């Protein structure tokens, strides 16, 4: 059997802040402009695609994040099995969207790593390397932003009060992780 190896798989605690990798979950990049694209996905996943910038919509097992007028990030709340990578979700969408040329469906599960950060100091940590203004964001559950954290591209999803999921490309994740740990010790 092939061994599954995530990029960070660590959990760290500092004053008022916990950080851990959230894996393995399915992540799918969706792109499309056509109106049918929006409705089709809504139907097949019974979730509304957010068209409002910097927002997301979620149900108990899925989140869809707005990334741009024609791009979304879909990810699961459920962790998936490590010993296979046949994702029904991916295949379903691919055949319903990509195959019929409504848009594009791309599995990016391992392109991105998700770091879950929670605790009172969550935004203190972000502000030590991120120019984004979180004053409004931090009180808006479900808010989404794509920005840079210590020069690394990230997607930030506001899960709850003082809890975020931070998306970082896998090859950058170790570096960002150690920077976050170095920052957290000064909070």
């Amino acid at each position, binding site marked *: *059997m*092939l*061994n*599954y*190896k*995530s*990029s960070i798989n660590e959990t760290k605690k500092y004053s008022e802040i916990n950080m851990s990798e959230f894996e*393995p979950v399915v992540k799918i*990049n969706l*792109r*499309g402009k056509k109106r049918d694209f929006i409705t089709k996905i809504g139907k097949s996943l019974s979730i509304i695609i957010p068209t409002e910038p910097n927002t997301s919509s979620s149900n108990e097992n899925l989140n869809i994040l707005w990334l741009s007028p*024609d791009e979304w990030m879909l990810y699961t709340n459920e962790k998936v099995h*490590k*010993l*296979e*990578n*046949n994702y029904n979700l991916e295949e379903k969408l691919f055949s319903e969207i*990509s195959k019929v*040329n409504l*848009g*594009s*469906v*791309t*599995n*990016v*599960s*391992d*392109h*991105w790593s998700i770091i879950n950060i929670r605790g009172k100091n969550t935004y203190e940590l972000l*502000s*030590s*390397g*991120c*120019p*984004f*203004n*979180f*004053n409004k964001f931090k009180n808006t559950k479900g808010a989404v932003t794509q920005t840079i954290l*210590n*020069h*690394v591209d990230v997607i930030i999803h506001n899960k709850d009060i003082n809890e975020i999921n931070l998306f970082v*490309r*896998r*090859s*950058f994740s*170790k*570096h960002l992780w*150690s*920077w976050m740990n*170095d*920052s957290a010790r*000064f909070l």
Partner: protein
Amino acid sequence: MNKNLRITNNKFIDQTSRISFKFDGKTLYGFKGDTLASALLANNIHLVGRSFKYHRPRGIMACGSEEPNAIVQVGNDASMTEPNTRATEIELYEGLEASSQNCWPSVNFDIGAINNFFSPLIPAAFYYKTFMWPANFWKLYEYFIRKSAGLGKSPTKPDKDIYDHRYLHCDVLIVGGGISGIIAAKTAAKNNLNTVLIDDKNILGGTTLFQENECFKINNSYSNEWLKKEIETLNSLKNLTIKTRTSVAAYHSYNYILARENLTDHLDLNEKKDKIRQRLWKIRAKKVIIATGAIERPLIFNNNDRPGIILSSSIKKYIDYYGVKCGQKISLFTNNDSAYETAISLSNSGVSVNSVVDIRDKTNSLIVKQAEKLGIKIHWKSTVVNTNGYKRINSIEIMKLSDDSSAVVGKKIKEECDCLGMSGGWTPRVHLFTQSGGKLKFREEDNVFLPDKSNLEQISIGSCNGDFELYEVIKNSASSTNKFLNVKNIDYENLEIISSKEMDKKNIWLLPSDKPLGKTKPFLDFQNDSTANDVKLALREGFKSIEHVKRYTTTGMATDQGKLSNMHALGIISETAGVKMGELGTTTFRPPYTPLTFGTIVGRNVGEFFDIIRKTPIHDWHLENKAEFENVGQWKRAWYYPKENESMYDAVQRESKAARDSAGILDASTLGKIDIQGTDASEFLNRVYTNAWSKLEIGKCRYGLMLNEDGMVYDDGVTARLSENHYIMTTTTGGAANVMTKLEDYLQTEWPELDVYLTSVTDHYATISVCGPNSKKIVSKVIPDLDLSDSNFPHMSFKNAKIDKIKCRVMRISFTGEHSYEINIQSSYGKSVWEKCFEAGKEFNITPYGTEAMHLLRAEKGFIIAGQDTDGTITPVDLQMNWIISKKKYDFIGKRSLYRSDTIREDRKQLVGILTEDPKEVLEEGAQIVADTNKKPIEMLGHITSSYFSPNLKKSIALAVVKNGKKLKGKKMFVPMENKTINITITDTIFLDKENKRLNA
């Protein structure tokens, strides 16, 4: 310490907490709350340094960031020492060690002082006029000039301290915690605006904090008592953040402000460790209120630079705030009312004030009357013409001013003193306002530049806006803040305010003397030793613009950036040149406001965090197997895998040989990968690559070359067709990000009509390349149920497969010319698959090879590396790859540029192969190629782009670009090195297996 220099009744300095510190090796004592300056003065030490040019003795002159003279070296640890630190800003701490700068052997006896004797020979800019003979001696002259220049000493070991950055977004930022700033802060915060108030001192309150004077009262209590209550209310406001020990360094456009917060500099030596020393705040404020106050001006007269000559307001702060007497017999010299506040404070504290020398005719403001009531002697309409005392002032010489004040008259009065306070009026701190791009206006009556127009959301209030009297300060600060924030705060409307009003104003930039100017030394820039004479000399020589004068005389270019000298320089220029000051304009104030530590600007982006490090999913295996790594962009790639004490050369030879003899394995995960979907995917590829794509069969791969619009090779890689409208493109490692951006650019801006979507999947896949004659056997062991027969799975095709339950894509493509497979699998399984291949390959001596061997192997086959064999000046035709340029296609990126008069030239530099006469001689990459070594000037026809010793061909091979190369096959040429000339022959670019037999071997 001299007890008698400390007064006991003092609110601010805790005289029970004694602190010991060292200055110039001598142990001294001060109190918590002291600055180094106040502690030195309390110890009756005035002489702290030597000036830059003449090495004249210099003492403490101010009490804040404007200090030009008292700059010292802090600490003497090679990694922690800090040069050029202002004694007036160093908060005293246990273990502080400071020493004088720019003097040798000591501040008391300084050899350099000989310059003072030679000063007549070295006026402003003398160095432009001499040291030119003999010509080649400048090196020598310069050596000595450099030695005598410079102030403190740089550390010689790395800094142990930690620095940090923080971003901050607020509605209102208030800079300056004096009375105006406090009024503004309270107003903003009370109106639910997210407010930040910062001040560079350790407590709020500014100078009002210690203003306990009958002439300044608010609602019947002293202004300091009133302010104290205001400050208390601030602390109760929830949406107000107060940052002390924080000074704004730069005010950029879009209200982007950089502020330095000092976190440990004031702590005792043993408390500093493992803490962040300084933090740079990157602030975005919707609105900015500048309340930075004003700087007292010195007066310009002969020998106005001696230790013991201090700004009058500083003397006041030392006595009222620090409880320190700057002298026992103090004289004051002024052109305005503020010196009288000092006089009153001094005599209230029992310091004898000799007299006040005032250049004005008798005036009767409240404060002057009070001073007279206290019996303080005043010399009206008089000036100081000279001071005496080498290392400490001991007397001043006073004369009456003529009626028009252009000269001095009558007899000279000599007055003994050990300290002279001078006050030349006030200069609003408009530095931040101008930094932000704001324009200034000039106010004639008291010669001040004031904030005028700005296109940012900002105002200036208080004395930095030209309000100098308590009544105006309060009223105007309150009303402008209300207006600016458009709120209504009535707290400051019905206050009963007593404040002395200045009746008469008079200013003389350069005070007259009884001696001719040339025989006097009236200093403007105390640190750089530039005098009024220097400015006049510059003007005589035709340097009219203020910028010219500044640069010619170096006035205002010292570490205080002219905070005390700029106005006088301007004044003297305008007087001498007869130009109005308003028209003259100021020199530009450039950031930072006060010098800013490099470490603070850089924050934690040092060492490990200097730059991003990208790693492949298989990185750990490379580490475990002792790989050396190569930086490719931000990636760490396995370069070669030395076996114990094997040299790089040997390792690369071994790896390259193994790959062709049996099997090699390479981590190619860093290659860029772009998923392309959409009905126009094929058309899109037709437009971005030079070759045609529409006919590529599903399941097949094709190599593509991408150009810039200028026709030069930009990137290359293999693209596979997954289905009718679905491709996956690979790019070079370094080019990945740029290619993605470039392609999105074309899609969004030039070809929005195309139905194509791009998604980067670079990090999603681990890419493992197994090559060599035995690669087939190995892959069949790893993926048993995949039919690897050439018929089913030919070169340049791919198959979807599964390893255990994990889907993957296997491509049969080759960058080495060997039979090889590239397994692309989700990154999480990459390391496991790699290990599986390695296990399966053991019986075939599978050998991991790094980028260096990969480069060697592809060179044997004459495959190019974009960026190494091309340099942005090479077209596909130059590469002799005409086969890849579709003739049928109407257009593709860069096509038109291939037909310009220069790009169609036949004799451009073209890619060729090179063989050396001596097969063991390996050429140096970058070496130049010539046909005729005797021709002068020698003509360089091209250069070596790639060069290796091929273990498989057992000879040296190289690629090169050579002028007209494709016509020169077989021609003998030369590579001239420093010590020898190497004979070479131009050949074909393919050195090994021209027939590509090995691909299917």
